[in-house]
């Protein structure tokens, strides 16, 4: 099944399902590590040694690599060019006429690219392998207020609905002779007939959603039964604590080395 406005790839690995919180913890650990690991090679090693195998295990390695390439490559390329060319007073590696790439600039670009690679791919891996509703449910079970989970999930669902509605309104107004192409003035004039029905309609939608939620006892206090069972295990719990501990240790170590 596809979930709107989400990167979830919906591939089952056939292995024991991993609890959403475990995946969230891995993503969080990698994110912090990306910012704190002082060695450039470390970031790439973490990507190749942890994220890629995990992605392969969840059968989204190809998908992840493609997405990472699309997001990270343009950044990395501009980093290497700009830092390499405009690093002041570095050692030239390659020269072409008045331009030269400096070693220090390239090293800096490699370090930054590694961090961006980790940050982007940890988030993408989480998004590709985790249904947003399962993640929210896991968080609600750990004490996150229902309302916050609801806001996050409906926002994801509303975007495509909003787009569809906007398209219908655009079609209706064009059918009434509204010219939407041409000069800037014309386009600005065409904005109100589109915006007003969209905003009014959304307000009505919100009211109806609220009524529907109340009719289904959304604001009832106390624990709610969930139809979805999220299997967890002692091993996973221990693994999460270990990652948390590692994250804290990493932070402390980094702080100490910086302060010293």
């Amino acid at each position, binding site marked *: 099944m596809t979930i709107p406005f989400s990167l979830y790839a919906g591939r089952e690995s056939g292995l024991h399902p991993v609890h959403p919180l475990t995946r969230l913890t891995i993503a969080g650990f990698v994110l912090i590590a990306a910012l704190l690991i002082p060695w450039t090679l470390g970031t790439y090693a973490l990507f190749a040694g942890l994220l890629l195998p995990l992605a392969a295990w969840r059968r989204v390695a190809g998908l992840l690599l493609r997405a990472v390439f699309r997001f990270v490559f343009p950044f990395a390329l501009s980093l290497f060019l700009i830092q390499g060319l405009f690093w002041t007073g570095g050692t030239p590696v390659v020269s072409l006429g008045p331009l030269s790439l400096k070693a220090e600039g390239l090293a800096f670009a490699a370090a930054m690219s590694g961090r961006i690679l980790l940050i982007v791919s940890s988030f993408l891996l989480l998004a590709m392998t985790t249904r947003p509703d399962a993640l929210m449910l896991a968080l609600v079970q750990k004490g996150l207020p229902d309302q916050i989970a609801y806001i996050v999930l409906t926002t994801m669902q509303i975007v495509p609905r909003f787009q569809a509605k906007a398209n219908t*309104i655009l079609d209706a107004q064009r*059918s*009434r*002779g509204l010219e939407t192409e041409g000069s800037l003035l014309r386009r600005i004039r065409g904005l109100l*007939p589109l915006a*007003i029905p969209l905003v009014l309609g959304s307000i009505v939608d919100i009211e109806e959603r609220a009524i529907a939620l109340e009719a289904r006892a959304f604001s009832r206090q106390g624990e709610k039964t969930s139809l979805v069972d999220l299997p967890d295990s002692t091993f996973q719990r221990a693994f999460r604590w270990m990652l948390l501990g590692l994250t804290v240790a990493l932070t402390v170590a980094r702080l100490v080395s910086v302060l010293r």
Partner: protein
Amino acid sequence: MIDGLSIAVEDIRFTYPGGVEAIQGVTLSVSPGEAVAIVGENGAGKTTLVRQFNGLLKPTSGRVLVGEWDTREHSVATLARRVGYAFQNPDEQLFERTVRAEVAFGPKNLGFSSEDILASVHEALERVGLADAADQHPYDLPLSQRRLLALAATLAMQTPIVILDEPTTGQDAPSVARIGGIVDSLRQEGRTVITITHDLDFCAEHFPRVMVMASGRVLVDGPAREVLAQSDTLAEAEVDPPQLVRLARSLKLTNMPLTPEEFVTAWQRSRGE
């Protein structure tokens, strides 16, 4: 007086960006002044087909001619001079502060003179019975009247072709009768009227020509009396014949009555009165 225009659909196919082929080879022509009802279950391709008539969708292959205009060569706003399209949901188009201004929006876009705008707005509001509400805010009207208002906004554009997408949905009997009356008067003026409807009774009473669609194709297209009698084809398209047709059939009447008056005549004749 506005003369109707013809529509010619030449072997069109249409595939949505998602890959669904919603129109799988349709050829048809509608003469100036004809009134055609398109029926069929949800997803049969009715809306996709009529959206080709005013250029909201352009055929993937084949072509659609409105008068002598190829829809691929004209923008929707330009085609709006020829084809008025009344959408299903009025709340996805109403935006002005008064009913009057709302109806004037289309004629203004088409560049009518201010006298013509006044006249056509007045006429359209009279037609749908909202003349007394001209100064109200559109959203102060109940939904059924907002639907009539959206219809008036299309009628005021004085187009030779009028498309009505499910005009009777959610309307009470007097409003359905009023919309039927509007269809009849448009026909008398010689304007071309095309409707999509699930209301077969409305279709039988006001549309001489009926087209049945299923899975992106036209199953049958012809005079209402003949088409609505083909129970097998209608069943294939998941459409129930009009109530009067079903009643006449259970009473084993030989004629196919489309209006209550015709039914009474047929009934009396069968009893030898």
